[in-house]
């Protein structure tokens, strides 16, 4: 079974706009990771945020984590057509090692 739920399931925006994706999960976590998947490059790690962190940046990506609400958001600023992909959040629970993925958000960036 999957731990997380992403919202929205699908998102279509114009190039240059910002895209925000949300992830909710059920149990306490050690860390939360965001991955991107497209047909060209497979599943690629984007960013990891630990349970004691609230916000993290990497280039055009901004991730927030609210452990009280068991939710995270991924913001992509100034989107590009190349950002078109499916985005997944994945949690690591306790001292375990496996990633538990959500169902993903399919992002389409129109040129």
């Amino acid at each position, binding site marked *: 079974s*999957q731990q997380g739920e992403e919202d929205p399931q699908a998102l279509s925006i114009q190039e240059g706009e910002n895209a925000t994706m949300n992830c909710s999960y059920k149990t306490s976590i050690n860390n939360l990771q965001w991955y991107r998947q497209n047909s060209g490059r497979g*599943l690629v790690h984007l960013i990891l945020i630990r349970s004691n962190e609230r916000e993290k940046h990497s280039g055009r990506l901004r991730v927030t984590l609210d452990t009280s609400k068991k939710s995270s958001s991924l913001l992509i600023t100034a989107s590009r057509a190349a950002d078109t992909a499916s985005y*997944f959040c994945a949690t690591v629970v306790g001292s375990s*090692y*496996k*990633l*538990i993925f959500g169902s*993903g958000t399919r992002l389409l960036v129109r040129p």
Partner: protein
Amino acid sequence: GAGVSQSPRYKVAKRGQDVALRCDPISGHVSLFWYQQALGQGPEFLTYFQNEAQLDKSGLPSDRFFAERPEGSVSTLKIQRTQQEDSAVYLCASSFRLAGMNEQFFGPGTRLTVL
């Protein structure tokens, strides 16, 4: 350096046939994972190796699924007597050290279609 590689990239099997999927992790990576991804879903954990030891196989759907990593590098996922519900993309991932604390590097996957 090379990333995680998987072979074959595509496999079509007749129901009841046995298949073997191979994963070559990044050299030196201690941790290796197999995930199964159904169409339109996120990957789901199957099994985990630390070096040659299979520490968790709780995600394997049935005893028809078997994985090994005998020398702590290459891994093989074997599915016996394939069924249509086994159709999915099988992803392999590796991680340098303590898995869970670090990112996992994924291979391109093997798309298995069972007819």
